């Protein structure tokens, strides 16, 4: 007969796991876990807010707190949830995973949308209710109307040129061997900040004028003078200055359009193009009747993205002209209203107007998402 093996001597971890199986044990452990979490997160928060440490040290602590704190939070909340009885673990665990992200996104974006909407109905200091007065301002003020008109110009000219150039370069580069080199160079301006691009192009548009006896150092004026014209202060000449600013936008965003469209073009099945060519279609016909319809979805996506970009555009206008000389745009007016003039109500109304302009794209994206059967 086999001897029944005696129970092995219980070590510490066995005792803990036994204790954790009791209700009391679970409750106490949960409370401890949550306490630890709160202390770490809150303590780190206060510390980082008020600290005066040198930057390298501060960066490290911030990363430790942010990543470590998040990891701790996930581990501990998961721990607590898994100890709950019955169906609760299965129901609550997903929220362990998505909870922090949802919380942060709600605080940073979703709830502020509602709050901004509310603020838009109040006055400059958000104290008195003023109904739709801010919206009347947003839609009738002379400067706002100028901004609307400019944004429309940016939207139409900027997007169409970005997409056309991007498509053109994507198609051309597709047929060469040095493709990645060309695409890298065209794409390069995406890495620059709008402020940096502003400096670059401000230098090109630099104007000196006659009377100093010195030649023009801005490239554009130098070319104009060499061709026999007179130098101009380009950024101050309304309405052309808007176009000169849009050029900067095109310079920067074409690379994005090119990259996306390039991969879309490569996805066009070769057989389709071959069949068309065999049927006698020219390259141009193949392009317009086969390729373009095939990449329609991508074209729309890229265009809507750039449209949204142009609506939110702030940096270029602020750095180049400050919105003066008739170049103001909505996003710039938003900044001026809130942070220069102190008009919180009007600025909120402008932000809501921006949101309204973007709603068609949101609706489109949502519909695309619903149809993608990702769920």
């Amino acid at each position: 007969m086999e001897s029944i093996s005696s129970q092995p001597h219980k070590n510490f971890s066995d005792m803990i796991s036994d204790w954790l199986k009791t209700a009391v044990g679970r409750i106490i452990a949960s409370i401890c876990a949550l306490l630890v979490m709160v202390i770490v997160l809150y303590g780190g928060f206060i510390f980082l807010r008020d600290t005066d440490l040198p930057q390298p040290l501060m960066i490290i602590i911030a990363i430790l707190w942010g990543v470590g704190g998040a990891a701790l939070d996930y581990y501990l909340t998961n721990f607590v949830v898994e100890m709950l009885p019955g169906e609760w673990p299965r129901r609550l665990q997903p929220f362990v995973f998505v909870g922090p992200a949802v919380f942060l996104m709600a605080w940073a974006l979703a709830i502020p949308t509602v709050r901004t909407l509310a603020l838009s109905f109040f006055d400059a200091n958000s104290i008195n209710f003023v109904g739709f007065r801010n919206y009347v301002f947003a839609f009738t003020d002379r400067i706002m109307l100028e901004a609307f008109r400019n944004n429309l110009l940016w939207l139409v000219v900027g997007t169409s040129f970005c997409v056309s150039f991007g498509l053109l370069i994507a198609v051309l580069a597709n047929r060469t061997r040095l493709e990645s080199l060309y695409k890298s160079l065209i794409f390069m301006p995406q890495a620059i900040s709008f402020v940096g691009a502003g400096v670059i192009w401000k230098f090109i548009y630099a104007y000196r004028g006659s009377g100093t006896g010195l030649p023009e150092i801005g490239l554009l004026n130098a070319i104009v003078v060499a061709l026999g014209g007179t130098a101009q202060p380009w950024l101050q000449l309304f309405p052309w200055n808007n176009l000169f600013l849009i050029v900067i936008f095109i310079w920067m965003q074409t690379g994005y359009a090119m990259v996306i469209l390039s991969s879309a073009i490569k996805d066009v099945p070769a057989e389709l193009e071959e069949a068309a060519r065999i049927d006698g279609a020219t390259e141009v016909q193949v392009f317009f009747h086969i390729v373009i319809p095939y990449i329609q979805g991508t074209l729309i996506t890229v265009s809507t993205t750039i449209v949204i970009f142009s609506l939110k555009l702030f940096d270029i206008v602020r750095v180049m002209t400050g919105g003066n000389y008739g170049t103001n745009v909505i996003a710039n007016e938003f900044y001026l209203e809130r942070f220069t003039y102190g008009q919180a109500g009007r600025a909120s109304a402008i932000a809501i107007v921006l949101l309204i302009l973007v709603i068609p794209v949101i609706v489109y994206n949502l519909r695309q998402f619903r149809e993608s059967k990702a769920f």
Partner: protein
Amino acid sequence: MINGVLILICTIWIVPALGILITSFRDSQDIFRTGWWTVFPHQEYVVSGQIHVDPNTDLNGPIAIRGVPGKYTFEQLKEGVTLSDGRKLIWYGNKRTRLIEVSTLQWVGFSTRFTLKNYQDVLSDKTVNYKDANGNNIVRQGDNLSGAFLNSLAVTIPATVIPILIAAFAAFGFAWLKFRGRKFLFSIVVMLLVVPLQIALIPIVQDYTRLDLNGSFLGIWLAHTGFGLPLAVYLLFNYISQLPREILESAYIDGASNFTIFTQLILPLSVPALASFAIFQFMWVWNDYLVALVFLGNHHTVLTVALANMVGEKGQDWHLLTAGAFISMIMPMTVFFALQRYFVRGMTAGSVKG
């Protein structure tokens, strides 16, 4: 032929950046006197001799010059007179110098007058001086871009790293865990992808005033984390939901919990997508101007804000502006060229940062 067109387009494309690169290395006096393209070989008028005007000649009327046919007034000579034999005569100085410079058109090779002084000046926070077009010495306060550079790093690194873990957990939850409200919550994420930032700024500034976070690094880290999460969750969701189901199934069969599956299986497998997002977020935060302006202002200037300030205050100091612009570009450019592949992959995966 296609190559030719592309080369032309690419050359035009990089000319603007080339302009400031070259300018940033030129001596300030050169910058103000000649265009940056003169660095390249070109023809220009080079002084080859001088003519002294006779002390007795009357300068108020047409002046006769030895060896030169015809007469020219003082005003004409001041502007510069080009003779038919190719020589150019320019009066030097005022009427008392009575000196005319003779120049001829010659080929000039690559300029070698380059200097690092502009970079030194723009990085320091002490007073600096430089020469303008006429050789006058001008004194300015240094822009302390080295401090701004560190501030940019201090803002960007945590703002890039912190969202990663949070988004990864959420993406896994959306992709593989079933729960009520999953589709609804994720639809909100999709909507938040294109919401303009301006919508969020005023309420968050209000919150920060109450929490005493305005002008602090912690404030901008939290803001950038919040702003970056929709994109991060979306990107990672797309990636994780394309991982083969069998991996998860076999792990479940082996008795692993969701938590361990995520930390030990999904997270390591998601590194390419995490890298793509990290690069994207890094570039976006580094180049950001609006959020930094609103939440940090001049309390802790980052590079973009410092550069924008320079444009406003020293708009004509091209030697400083170009060097400053280039310093702000060095980091993202390096990241871009070194890690292009991930960047492009992130874009084609649907990342769209507004």
